[in-house]
């Protein structure tokens, strides 16, 4: 097997739910060895979230949990139990990086804050990720990424101007911030490689995610303009929309990027007179009369299945795509070609499916190497192979109840 790019990187991962684990999952794909600590009593919320394998509910059925934790080793540990200290200390000595996503103060309360960890290992890199950051009046504001998305402005910018904000789907900052988590860890490893120094990284998921709203923030700072949700209209392009297609909840995205695109679309719709219509001649005309134009396009698209509309439009160089749900994405020829989904053996379900790495490296490609651990699945492996404990030590530990 080819060498994986992060094979030498060892991470002790106390993160849970979605944002944190999705970040370290990316590093696991590229070869990092990750030991994930789970509480044996307080189950990771992610294990209770859908989609569920075969629609069954159970601690190992969550597709979300399995997608965020594939490739990691799982160790159950009752951190409140003093007996866990020694194991954690040995894992910190083993690790290059320690990550956690509790609300601030939790690690300090357990005596596991950065100052404590660097006494165990002076060049340790520690990353804390929480909704609003470790300091400030909202430091203890806890919850899920939908709350961070609301408080960061994403909700108010998503939806129809004549209605209440729709907000992006689900826990939006939990999709944005994991990338920055992985970036920060890799940058800190590079810095340590050159200087020998570890460090502490304070990640506010809200602050990281605000980089996806920079144009709106600058519009306010530079022009005093507070942008608000605008449906699917675009400041640069028209037509620009989601149009109904044949079937229930079937839609196609169609965007004309140039006047030529618009001419080609009118041609495709067999409506050449629309291209000559003074209401639609220039981009600004089309913006002004967008709803009339959208109705014309909808009357064409409604007769077609979304993939057919996509195919016809793309054949003429017009940006278009069927609006895909999971079933349609799963059977999308492009998705299949790219090998997006990966089937893995699973101790409970026989097999399961996760998403593979999203970036392809030509020489050392990443891979989802094993299904996410079931609760406590790797206790023996971690204690024996990673920490090198003797059989007797492991027996004592198991007997103490610290593993749950």
């Amino acid at each position: 097997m080819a060498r994986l790019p992060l094979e030498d990187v060892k991470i002790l991962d106390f993160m849970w739910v979605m944002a944190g684990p999705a970040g370290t999952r990316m590093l696991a794909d590229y070869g990092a060895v990750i030991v994930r600590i789970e509480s044996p009593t307080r189950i990771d919320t992610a294990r209770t979230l859908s989609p569920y394998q075969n629609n069954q509910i159970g601690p190992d059925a969550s597709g979300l949990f399995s997608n965020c934790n594939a490739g990691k080793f799982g160790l159950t540990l009752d951190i409140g139990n003093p007996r866990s200290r020694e194991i954690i200390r040995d894992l910190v000595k083993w690790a290059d990086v320690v990550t956690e996503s509790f609300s601030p103060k939790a690690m300090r309360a357990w005596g596991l804050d950065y100052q404590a960890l660097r006494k165990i290992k002076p060049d340790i890199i520690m990353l804390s990720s929480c909704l609003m950051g470790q300091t400030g009046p909202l430091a203890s504001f806890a919850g899920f990424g939908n709350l961070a998305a609301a408080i960061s402005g994403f909700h108010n910018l998503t939806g129809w101007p004549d209605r209440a904000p729709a907000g992006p789907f689900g826990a939006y900052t939990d999709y944005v911030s994991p990338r920055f988590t992985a970036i920060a860890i890799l940058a800190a490893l590079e810095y340590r490689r050159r200087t020998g120094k570890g460090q502490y990284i304070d990640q506010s998921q809200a602050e990281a995610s605000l980089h996806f709203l920079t144009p709106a923030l600058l519009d306010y700072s530079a022009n005093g303009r507070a942008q608000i949700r605008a449906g699917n209209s675009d400041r640069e392009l028209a037509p620009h929309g989601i149009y109904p297609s044949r079937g229930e909840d079937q839609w196609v995205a169609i965007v004309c990027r140039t006047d030529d695109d618009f001419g080609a679309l009118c041609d495709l719709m067999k409506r050449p007179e629309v291209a000559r219509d003074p209401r639609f001649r220039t981009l600004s005309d089309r913006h002004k009369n967008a709803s009339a134009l959208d109705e014309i396009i909808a009357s064409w698209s409604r007769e077609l299945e979304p993939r057919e509309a996509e195919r016809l439009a793309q054949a003429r160089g017009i940006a278009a795509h069927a609006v895909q749900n999971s079933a349609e994405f799963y059977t999308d020829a492009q998705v299949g070609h790219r090998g997006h989904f990966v089937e893995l053996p699973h101790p409970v379900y026989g097999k399961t499916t996760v998403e593979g790495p999203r970036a392809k490296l030509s020489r050392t490609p990443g891979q989802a190497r094993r299904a996410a651990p079931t609760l406590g699945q790797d206790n023996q492996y971690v204690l024996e192979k990673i920490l090198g404990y003797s059989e007797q030590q492991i027996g004592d530990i198991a007997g103490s109840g610290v593993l749950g």
Partner: protein
Amino acid sequence: MLSPYRVLDLTNERGLLCGQILGDLGADVIKVEPPGGSPARKLGPFFQDQPDPNRSLYWWSYNRNKRSITLEISRREGREILLRLAKDAHFLIESDSPGQFASLGLGYADLAAINPALIGVSITPFGQDGPKASYADSDLVILAAGGPLVLTGDDDRAPVRVSVPQGYLHAATDAAVAALAAHHERCFSGLGQHIDVSAQQSLALATQSGILAAPLDADQYRRAAGGVKSGAMTAQLLWPAKDGWISCTFLFGTALGVFTVKLMRYLAEHGWCDEATGHKDWIGFGAALASGAEPMSEYHRACGILSSFTSSHTKAELLRFAIEKGFLFAPVSTIADVIESPQLRARDYFREVEHPELGRSFRYPGPFVKFSESPIQYRRRPPLVGEHNREVYVDQLGMSEPEMQELQQRGII
């Protein structure tokens, strides 16, 4: 953190954020633009609404900590200059259609032939290969293809996107992760490689793993603005406040139900509902609704109680409840709320970046994380078109002044 490394950034609007992240981390990022400036400079909004390549706020958003040179790489001499620059670069990022750079003799294989340690990054809508690799694209198109769009918006209308384009940002951040992973490996092997990022695949992450419904044989998520549908229930997530909206996670079950228990007890104690309602089994309530043991009207009644409470308070008051009582409330912030946020102020988040040619500074979102040893610095405001031509061509590549001027006259630079 990346100060020893040089990045050539040839991206258009699809990939700008990737280079900026490396620049924020300290790399020397040279933005290579066609003469006249990158097409991304034509994207608004513009400072004072004056369209000008140096006033595009979209450009400003994703080109901090970069230098700019202009170069016509589609002409032979331009190509040769780029190859000279690539010889001692560590990363090269591009986001043109697949095959475009190769057709100019600048594909990854051409570049690796002169610099085998180079990490080449390509950010495209659908990836380098496959039946849709050459599809025409836009933000809306990749959102549709990648899965999040169908889940977003009101269920009685068409799906809707975030009004600030998001699609390529997901791809550009994935690209930055992969580039740094490849760099880590290069420190051992001395070898570069090519990285191929598909925005369609990057966007699947924005479905909260809902994209796995089909392969797992599970229920599909559906859009329901302000709520998530599950069986017969549409869980309301957005609630009215006195001065706007708040988001509240009002759900049941072992993990989320505990917050609802706390909230409903509080509402009963303070007279917003009767004791029996306050002490209902909120953990098991979802299952009871699913089995029919509780009628759906009971859920709607509970939502009504919560609404009357939230609409009697301001967003700020409700946020205080969240912090003091641990309720899952968050205000739906306006852009002004974000800029004025006491939390962001307390953390000194925003950065005033001086634009001397405009005689003022602008407030930029601050570092994406706080590093204790090597904090991110905003060393350079986004560059003007070709601002660093002399610095790069004369001081760095050793071109003579007349040589550079001649190339300028001929439209190569």
